[in-house]
């Protein structure tokens, strides 16, 4: 008995030690204290801010899932996908169709959220199967994924007629769907409806923390190590007996599922979804966040995404038309000056200063 107890205990310990590892930046007590402080500050935020600002912060958090998924696909597995918005949009529509048909009672919206993520992930799995088992590589993957999302946009934009309905839900073409219920938690003495505000914010914050820590464990596990090895040298990995295609397809599906989570949450947050969420401009957004932050590290991606989103919102106050120009400029500067990402550059610099101070 004691033996099994210690082995399960040590297994849990190995599991937790994977929170740190070669594939993720940040280790040691100082880093985890900083993470705890950041999480605590984020949790305390609704106490000092008004409901609208908190709902707005929740909006930022929604996008981080898509960014982290893209970081896994692009940064860790080395596969550039331009089509994360396809999974985002598909899941958004799926959430809308399911909730409009089933209603919001009995926690069915949570089921709709899960189903939407599964649908998005499965779609990514199918696309990934065709791409990776077809052995297309590099730039072609970018083109195929971009074409997929643009064709989905065109398809959804022409569903204006009354014949385009799934059960109760009209797809409404270019104007998109609206009026679906927000996430609702069944609770004793009445359901809790998660309108944009503190309650939704806490749910999203919890999801972000769980996803972030979960991804750290996954990336430092064997799976993550193989992904990084494939990025560095696919031939050698294949020679060592790993099925490169399988790993890439799985990574693509995981990234797609995260994009789908963003999409379903976005629909639940704003209670609408339009075809333009799958368009060219929308498809560029996750690339900008992840590239600017630093695609090869999940922490940098998370920080970068929130900084860029907040920055753009401030920018749109002064003139939304210049936001896209600044975005394009940011991409150019990042690629030419700091290809590993601005946040990664800053973090490396901080780490160097910190270490120098110690010695």
């Amino acid at each position: 008995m004691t033996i099994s107890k210690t082995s399960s205990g040590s297994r849990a310990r190995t599991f937790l030690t994977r929170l740190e590892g070669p594939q993720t930046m940040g280790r040691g007590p100082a880093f985890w204290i900083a993470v705890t402080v950041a999480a605590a500050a984020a949790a305390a935020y609704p106490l000092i801010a008004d409901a609208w600002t908190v709902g707005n912060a929740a909006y930022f958090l929604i996008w981080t899932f898509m960014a982290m998924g893209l970081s896994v696909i692009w940064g860790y597995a080395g596969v550039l996908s331009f089509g994360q918005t396809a999974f985002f949009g598909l899941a958004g529509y799926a959430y809308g169709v399911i909730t409009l048909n089933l209603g919001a009672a009995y926690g069915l919206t949570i089921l709709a959220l899960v189903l939407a993520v599964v649908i998005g992930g499965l779609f990514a799995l199918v696309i990934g199967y065709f791409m990776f088992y077809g052995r297309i590589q590099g730039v072609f993957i970018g083109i195929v994924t971009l074409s997929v999302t643009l064709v989905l946009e065109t398809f959804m934009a022409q569903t204006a007629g009354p014949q385009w309905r799934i059960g109760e839900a009209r797809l409404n073409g270019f104007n998109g769907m609206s009026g679906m219920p927000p996430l609702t938690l069944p609770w004793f003495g009445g359901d809790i409806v998660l309108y944009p505000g503190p309650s939704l914010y806490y749910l999203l914050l919890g999801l972000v923390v769980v996803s972030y820590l979960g991804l750290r464990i996954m990336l430092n596990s064997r799976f993550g190590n193989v992904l990084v090895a494939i990025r560095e040298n696919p031939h050698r990995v294949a020679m060592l007996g790993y099925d490169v295609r399988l790993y890439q397809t799985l990574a693509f599906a995981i990234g797609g599922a995260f994009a789908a989570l963003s999409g379903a949450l976005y629909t639940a947050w704003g209670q609408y979804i339009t075809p333009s969420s799958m368009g060219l401009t929308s498809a560029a957004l996750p690339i900008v966040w992840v590239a600017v932050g630093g695609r090869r590290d999940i922490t940098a991606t998370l920080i970068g995404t929130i900084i860029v989103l907040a920055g753009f919102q401030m920018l749109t106050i002064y003139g939304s038309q210049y936001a896209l120009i600044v975005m394009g400029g940011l991409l150019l500067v990042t690629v030419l000056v700091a290809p590993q990402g601005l946040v990664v550059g800053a973090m490396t610099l901080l780490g160097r200063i910190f270490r120098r101070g110690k010695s």
Partner: protein
Amino acid sequence: MALFQSVFAMLYQFGDTFAFLVISCAGLAVIFGMMGVINLAHGEFIMCGAYVTASAARGGLPLPLAILTGALVAGAVGMVVERLVIRHLYQRPLDSIIATWGISLIATQGVLIVLGSTMQGIGTPLGSIDVGGRSYSLYRLVLMACALGLLGGLYLLFYHSRFGVIARATIQKPQMAYALGVNTGRMYGLTFGLGAALAGLAGGLYAPTMTMVPTMGATFIVESFVTVVVGGADIFVGAAPAAAILALIKAGLTAWYGQLFGQIGLLVTVILVIRILPGGLSGWLKGTTR
């Protein structure tokens, strides 16, 4: 007579799609096939060509000259872009996609801010002809001839001119070409400029048939990417037959089921082709002849 009518209608539809695919993908195919760079700003070079053409034509230049001006201006812009940005990214093809995307965002939004959300277009010239009671645009027939002329011209340029020989040598063995005294940097610049000029030509040729908006490049981009993916890296063995096959599929599906199924048919074809022929048509054709 009824048979002739419907055959002509089918042929016209096919030729129209074929011409559109060939003309819009030529610039992309040259840049990708020759340099391995995917130019996501392709649509914006097309837009540049179209805007210059429309402005020149309304300024009094005859249309063919205006189109030529559009192509030249787009080519010059392309060479500047290559010098400033693309040149630093030849070792990092994924980053060059990102950079060209950044350029595309800046160009679209910049034009929107400077020139407004729309621009006065120029009408379609040449009028129409009547075949068996239905009228067909004569300009579109001219475009079909242009597509064939373009393929022929590119073939002559790459296989029967000094520039073509040096360009192909630079692409295949850059170090060797450099050792033999070829200024490879200049060749890359010229090739990228040629690709951009071809995109500008596409914009100029289609300017009279389209609404002039800053996002007009996006209407070309999916079709041209699809053609290049199906065709593979070589424009003659790949892109041209790919355009023919895709035009057949799209024209057929559009005629029988409508515009949307044409588009979806294209996408399904692409996904099937990459599953079956990863190197595209050109990889397959070259593989069987070897």
